[in-house]
């Protein structure tokens, strides 16, 4: 369904939003959550439902709006997001989703979230940099990352790519990566981190050791640059494709139907 020719003039945020939207095609019929500070995945969810996953159910952060069709606004809990929604979850509804419900055995429940640190096994951290008792940087908290051990799958996005974010091992495990602890404690069906969408490329955890692996490079980015800006040894396959750029149709939808105020193009993204 990428039925339109590649665009040439687009922002990195638009490229990332489109990449996440396309990934949602495998989640047509599934359920997805985004968190706070999530203008980018908000745009992705809207684009995905228009083009790739019309049966995706998604929740716009703590405001709880399901399948909102409003324009992108910066706060996912903004009440304008309720416009065009199909249901408004309260916190009990949200926590009910955050916990375990593989009893249905049908749809997957996925999250698209960020982190102040993400490590080579895909653990994420929102709590602190440095020692927990005496942190260098105190983060926002453990928030909803409890779903890192209950949702079917977790996708990460970051607006920056540098060795402070991509660390060898997180200083606090908000959501565990592909580690022994996950295999020991987490129920089957909760498959953990899948992909990372950064300003430099897309990454998976399909190396033999289930560490982060380069999957595609965004146009104009080299593997060397990614390696330099990553704080651990990245798995790099022999052939690394270039990330497909947005199509004209995707960009037209993003700019006219989804994000007419241009929130996405104003995002502070650094490489």
């Amino acid at each position, binding site marked *: 369904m990428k039925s339109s020719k590649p665009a040439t003039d687009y922002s990195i945020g638009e490229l990332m939003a489109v990449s996440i939207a396309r990934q949602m095609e495998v989640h047509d019929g599934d359920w997805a959550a985004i968190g706070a500070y999530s203008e980018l995945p908000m745009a992705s969810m809207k684009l995905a439902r*228009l083009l790739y996953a019309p049966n995706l159910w998604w929740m716009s952060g703590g405001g709880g709006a399901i399948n909102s069709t409003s324009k992108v606004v910066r706060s996912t809990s903004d009440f304008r997001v309720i416009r065009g929604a199909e249901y408004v979850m309260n916190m009990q509804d949200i926590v009910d989703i955050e916990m375990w419900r593989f009893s249905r055995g049908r749809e997957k429940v996925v999250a698209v979230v960020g982190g102040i640190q993400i490590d080579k096994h895909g653990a994420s951290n929102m709590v602190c940099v440095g020692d927990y008792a005496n942190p260098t940087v105190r983060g926002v908290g453990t928030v909803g990352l409890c779903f890192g051990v209950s949702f079917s799958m977790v996708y990460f996005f970051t607006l920056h790519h540098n060795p402070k974010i991509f660390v060898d091992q997180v200083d606090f495990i908000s959501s565990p990566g592909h580690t022994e602890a996950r295999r020991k404690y987490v129920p089957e069906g909760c498959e953990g981190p899948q992909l990372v969408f950064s300003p430099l490329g897309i990454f998976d955890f399909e190396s033999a050791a289930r560490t982060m692996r380069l999957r595609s490079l965004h146009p104009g980015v080299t593997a060397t640059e990614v390696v330099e800006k990553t704080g651990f040894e990245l798995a790099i396959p022999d052939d690394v494709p270039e990330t497909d750029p947005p199509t004209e149709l995707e960009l037209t939808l993003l700019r006219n139907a989804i994000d007419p105020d241009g929130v996405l193009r104003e995002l502070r993204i650094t490489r």
Partner: protein
Amino acid sequence: MELADIGMAPRREEKVGTLEEAVGLIKNGDMLAFGGIHSHNGPMALIRQMIRSGIKDLHAIGNVSAGMPADILIGGGCIETFTVCYVGLEHLGFAPRFRKAAEERKIKIIDGDEIYYVLGLKAGAVGLPFVPHPPGHEARDNPKFESTYARTTDPYTGREVIVSPAIAPDVGIIHAAQCDPFGNVVHLGSVVADDLIAKASARTIVTTEEIVPLDSIKRDPKRTSIPGHYVDLVVEVPYGAHPLSCHGVYNHDEPHIVEYRDADIDAYLQEYVFGVEDHFAYLEKFGIERLMALRESL
């Protein structure tokens, strides 16, 4: 206009089906929860179709206060086990087939109160391992049903506490005034525990008075009582709760519930279930005038 209308994107799939397809989602031996309360909002047309189809050996967890839906499922031979919070006909007395089956020990009964039922469904919906109960419940006759409760330790006080299990039905069946083709439900009156049933059940079927367009839902998403992602199948069944009420659409048909109560169950089932071809043939037995007279808005 959607992009699907001009062939540029796949189309959202509707979940609309028939009562026959609904029964196809219910297997012999399933744990079944049904919505509504007392003489209100029970999915009666679907229950009659289940009886007509010969569904057997269900473990019904019912609803928190079940009346005729529970009684007719027992009378129709569908039930092996019943988790009972309340089964009765309010001011119309005991539920006769439930009472007979219980006294003759033809069905297995698990007694659990409203806390057991509601918090059990809540736990089942989300994978909480069990429900710890507040102190005091040890003073009731819990020892008589040890199969209902277990015990563990409150690590904060060291006290022993009563716990009950998570409840995760195989199938939940609900009737509501409105539902869109994608499963978004609107209750015009009480939701009772229908939302919890939808959350906790592996498969959820909604019968509805009227399938409304998605735009009707989007007009006021705060009215939506159950989000559609919990719903597997939507069936439009006008008067689908009769002879119970559908809150906000029509009142319960109390004379018919009395007729049911006092009837020979086999004769009743022959006349109103096996002897009618489908739901509309059932409704024809009452006639439009009587059905219209039941209508009442909130």
